[in-house]
């Protein structure tokens, strides 16, 4: 009992001092801040930093939830909205824009956004709709020791990766030198989108929802994706981004295109087999088919403010989020993400994402019907990847599934 009392008291003191250190983020007036975000380390950090703004008049709550995409539209449709802040990315902002659920932020940026940089503002039709604070992309992770052993240089393209994989396998160094997150569903579709962006082609006919991937670029992408599977663990169709990270850390694979946001956790000293961490090199994502564009999508994560809330809550929410992504928070946590905030000094885990962005990778498309294409790709490419269907049939299936969904969605 005495011990418990002591613990409680010391915890209380700790909270008090922590509160005292950060209590002043200078929110004018009162209001309620309710944040909905995806669930990973960087966003949890932003949320807890924003929660420091809680005062007598201002309440701050945060829900970091992997199901945020399914929650956000219904939660922001009601009036008043369940959440005042929705943390989104290139793809998840689209449903909010389509249903007109978020408000323009220009007046709030002018009033409270002194610490923001111009390139953080996501502008649509001249109006700021979101404030981005971190970037993310998939990029190449490779094992320098394995490639050296096979006498290979750093792979710059998927063609290099295929050649390197063959050399490593033929030399008997590794059975499955390549890993990719090709689990049917969101991951598999993202792999296709990545590689297709690298060809430089567009997904849709200009200005319409007409699908335009049924061409030699689409075939090239599928051929490359399938060729890589020859060097993957036979269970590749059940591997998502977290599974390939585990395979890589276990030392079972030499090359993978993996999320930059998982780089920190891969090269830390936890969970990896001996020799993996010190030999890991993070490099720009590979190009495809002789092109010069890295074959991955660039992503940003940012915050939006709900439309169906009072102006007072919106002002409080904006200020709390600006505090959440403040340069001070970023300076204290440079290794957690590739921040887009002023004064960010990239750490060792961010070099892959930065190299990919500098090499001119394209952003994940924000067309209102891109989500329908992503869903169509996610289920229709599975048979092709399993090897029971040819590329032309797979593309025809994707087009048929997309057309059906787009008609139902009112886009065609």
């Amino acid at each position, binding site marked *: 009992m005495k011990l418990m009392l002591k613990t409680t008291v010391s915890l209380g003191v700790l909270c008090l001092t922590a509160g005292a250190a950060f209590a002043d983020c200078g929110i004018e007036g009162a209001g309620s801040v309710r944040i909905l975000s995806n669930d990973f380390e960087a966003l949890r950090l932003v949320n807890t930093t924003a929660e420091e703004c809680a005062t007598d008049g201002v309440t701050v709550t945060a829900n970091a939830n992997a199901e945020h*995409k*399914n929650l956000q*539209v219904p939660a922001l449709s009601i009036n008043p909205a369940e959440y005042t802040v929705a943390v989104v990315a290139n*793809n*998840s902002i*689209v*449903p909010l*824009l*389509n*249903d*007109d659920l978020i408000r323009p932020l220009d007046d709030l940026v002018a009033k409270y956004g002194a610490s923001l940089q111009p390139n*953080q*503002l*996501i*502008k*649509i*039709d*001249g109006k700021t709709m979101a404030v*981005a604070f971190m970037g993310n992309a998939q990029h190449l992770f490779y094992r320098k020791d394995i490639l050296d052993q096979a006498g290979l240089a750093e792979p710059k393209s998927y063609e290099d990766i295929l050649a390197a994989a063959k050399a490593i396998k033929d030399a008997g160094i590794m059975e499955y030198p390549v890993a990719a997150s090709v*689990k*049917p*569903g*969101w991951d598999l579709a993202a792999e296709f989108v990545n590689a297709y962006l690298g060809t430089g082609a567009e997904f*849709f006919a200009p*200005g*319409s*929802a007409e699908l335009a991937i049924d061409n030699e670029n689409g075939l090239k992408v599928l051929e490359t994706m399938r060729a890589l599977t020859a060097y993957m663990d*036979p*269970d*590749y*169709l*059940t591997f998502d981004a977290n599974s390939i990270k585990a395979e890589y850390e276990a030392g079972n694979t030499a090359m993978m295109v993996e999320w930059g946001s998982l780089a920190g956790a891969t090269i830390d000293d936890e969970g990896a087999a001996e020799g993996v961490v010190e030999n890991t090199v993070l490099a720009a994502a590979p190009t495809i088919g002789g092109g010069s564009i890295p074959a991955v999508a*660039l992503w*940003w994560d940012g915050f939006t403010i709900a439309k169906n809330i009072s102006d007072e809550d919106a002002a409080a929410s904006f200020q709390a989020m600006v505090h959440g992504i403040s340069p001070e928070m970023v300076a204290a946590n440079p290794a957690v993400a590739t921040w*887009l905030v002023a004064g960010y000094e990239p750490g060792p885990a961010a070099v892959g994402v930065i190299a990919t962005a500098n090499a001119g990778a394209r*952003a994940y*498309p*924000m*067309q*209102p*019907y891109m*989500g*329908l294409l*992503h*869903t169509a790709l*996610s*289920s229709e490419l*599975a*048979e092709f*990847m*399993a090897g029971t269907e040819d590329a032309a*049939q797979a593309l025809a*299936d994707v087009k048929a*599934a997309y*057309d*059906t*969904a787009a008609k*139902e*969605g*009112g886009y065609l």
Partner: protein
Amino acid sequence: MPHKTFFAFILPSLIAMVLFIALPIVSVVVQSLHVEHPRVLVEVENCQPFGGCTKEVRVDTAAMQQLEQEQPMGQFNGLGTYLNRGHLAVNEIGAILSSNAGFGDVVSRIYNLPFYKALSFTLVFCFVVTPLAMALGFVIALAVNAVPKAIKGPVIFFSLLPMIITPLVGSLILYWMIQSNGIIGASLQNLFNDPTLSLRASPVLTWASLLFYGVWSNAPFSFVVFYAGLQTVPGDTLESAMIDGASRWERIRYVIIPHLMPLATFVALVQLMDNFRVFEPIVGFSAEANATSLSWMIFNDLSGDAQLFGSAGATSVLTIIGVIILLTPVLIRTWREFNHKVV
């Protein structure tokens, strides 16, 4: 019981059933007949941290708002959603039947359509798992009935475990065991001396693992019902059968099974209905590449970056129709038996 009393008695549950079962089904049916309004698209300037400003298409929300206020349900589409490629695929089937290269081609092309692919696995799961799980449950019930009283409690508890474990957790456990570094996966590789053997890679082995999981998780329900039924088998009949020199097998065949038959009908009814809605093992086994079910299709329509409520509604209604078709023979049989008894 007078009709009035009877009615007053069941009124609360009737209201609950209308509110929580009938009305939602009606709303799903109405939803399935509608699709979204045609979207008004405009091209606007779009600026973001990467790639600067580009012209991109957006939905004109102001123009859409008026349309949505006039018709909040969306655009009436009749049976259009039911007949499109994502569901019954009438046009596609017609095209396949009118030009094809033989029976094999027809089957493989129809199997390529998402609804029929899902339906095939759903039906196979129903008709393989239901009888096998019932047989296994019956055997467990007979075995448990024969063990000494002292250990009966623990044995019953362990037999019920597959039913107690949440289906998703149960399937994940088995999924991890069949991985190439899991206990079952590694043993099989050893047994067949084939280091590339993977239960997760080939469609046939994936189906086999899913069916195995289905039998494992469904058997306890049959076991519980049959075990309860075994307690009601008349001792006199069994004794007289023994005096007549019937062996244990003959007693099971000619006394116990006929006695449990009405129960078997009930179990079959419930199990068929349950198995037609197979969903968790597909997610748990990450089997989407090789096996999908109708429930998985609904889940797929409602999750992800874009949600298709009309499509999900249509699949739900087709699932309900499927359950009704499946249960009709069993229901007719029950109805006949019931009438027979009354007469």
